[in-house]
């Protein structure tokens, strides 16, 4: 019997405690938490009251080192393709064209002073596939591929999620490719001619 009454008492007391806590929060609803980011020194001094932020208008800023949208600074990209190989899911697609010796000056150098040896007509990142692991960033030799703190980049069309970073237009790329092919053909022809000549000489001996 005493257990019966102690049960009722425990129920009443704990329910009253719980209701006290919720009522305290209810009356605390006049306060609202601010929108300081975690890198703000006052972050834990503002946490009191309602903590919802109304997203599109108010947002907690992402820290500067946050890894979200991939961005490639194509001016610094040397087209080495390490990111493409390192990506666990293969969301990066790169196509390169060899820079001819006479074009090296036109192609230019990276901001670090490294001579670029490839044109990069296609540098596509499918950010819909990207899982923001950051492995591609860690292998990039010129630090041109970075994750930006932009976290909200939804699109209505999935095609728009494929980001094109290539800095050559299709015509330019075509021209470059033809030029390389021509030169290669030329080189092959010369090689062939040289080989034929050598063979001739050999035969002549």
């Amino acid at each position, binding site marked *: 019997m005493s257990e*019966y009454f102690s049960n*009722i008492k425990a129920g009443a007391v704990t*329910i009253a405690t*719980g*209701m006290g*806590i*919720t*009522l305290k*929060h*209810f009356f*605390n*609803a006049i306060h609202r938490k601010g929108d300081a980011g975690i890198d703000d020194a006052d972050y834990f001094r503002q946490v009191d*009251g*309602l*903590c*919802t932020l*109304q997203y599109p208008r108010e947002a907690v800023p992402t820290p500067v080192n946050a890894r979200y949208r991939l961005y490639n600074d194509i001016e610094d990209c040397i087209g080495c393709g390490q990111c493409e190989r390192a990506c666990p899911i293969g969301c990066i697609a790169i196509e390169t064209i060899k820079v001819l010796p006479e074009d090296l000056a036109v192609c230019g150098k990276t901001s670090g002073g490294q001579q670029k040896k490839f044109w990069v007509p296609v540098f596509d990142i499918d950010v819909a596939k990207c899982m923001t692991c950051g492995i591609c960033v860690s292998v990039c030799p010129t630090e041109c591929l970075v994750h930006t703190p932009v976290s909200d980049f939804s699109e209505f069309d999935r095609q728009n999620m494929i980001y094109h970073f290539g800095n050559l237009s299709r015509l330019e790329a075509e021209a470059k490719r033809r030029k390389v092919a021509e030169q290669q053909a030329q080189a092959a022809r010369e090689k062939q001619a040289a080989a034929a000549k050598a063979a001739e000489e050999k035969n002549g001996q």
Partner: protein
Amino acid sequence: MSIAAISQIRLPFLMGNNLNAWSDALAGLTLSWFPLGLVIIAAIPLVFIALYALTYGVYGERKISAFMQDRLGPMEVGKWGILQTLADILKLLQKEDIVPTSADKFLFVVGPGILFVGSFLAFAVLPFSPAFIGANLNVGLFYAIGIVALEVVGILAAGWGSNNKWSLYGAVRSVAQIVSYEIPAAIALLCGAMMAGTLDMQQINVLQSGPYGFAHFYLFQSPIAWLPFLIYFIASLAETNRAPFDIPEAESELVAGYFTEYSGMKFAVIFLAEYGSMFMVSAIISIVFLGGWNSPLPNLGSVALYDWTSGPVWGAFWIISKGFFFIFVQMWLRWTLPRLRVDQLMYLCWKVLTPFAFISFVLTAIWEIYVP
């Protein structure tokens, strides 16, 4: 301006007792053979429920729960999200009216109707002010207790008709729960009726009026009255399927209980019925124990607070605000407590509430006989 002067400008045409004349005139209004006035009178509580449930019930529940949980709640539709429920209703209206193929079509359709009517019928005997009561029955309290049982039929029809196992569980649980909890609820209300000596709702209110305001309420008239008051409040939570007794719709166990299969307007009707019956039980508890439309403010010498705050419109204000207070407590409980289990619910009903209800019944009887 003196205080006496304020009491002079109490909106004479609204505050006076001529509201009776109003309703009498309205009742006599007929359009050729059609009793238009009576229909309007009957429609007033309906409009009230709809408005209250839409604007205050659902919106209030969402805001109160949000504030208790450190959230903002609806904020987008209108200032502070005040039109959110309206937007929800518009959405529900546009939805396709789905009746599952394997459902019992008749029961499925009729279930929400019975539920709604069940919660709406009790509004007929609720005195909203000294001048306004839908039907002044001399067994009003008895009628109000009895009519709640009609909801059980609606819930069972909805649950069985859905032909869904979760709905069936919800319906069966709900029936067991409501039928069990009628007993402590009715006995607790009987204590109030015993103190009044009548079952007439209007009369119960009149007996609780007096110049000392809240001191005349039955809750403060006897030292035992808080016990039936608490018992009825707990039992009323169970009768309206509110937390911590919301096991018929326990969303983590039974998905949505007896209304799992409902969508669109049928769902909205069930929702309205729930908020309607929430107000109904809150109104009943405030009528029986807290003086209904009586002002709780006492007359303090020349500061006649009670007199100034009495009258038909003030009465409606008091009963509605008392009702809202209990609805707030219901929501407050809901957002604090976990849910009981079925057998614990029955334990609470039969082994705790019912014995205590009988004890309070006997004690109230003794008090009424031996204490003048």
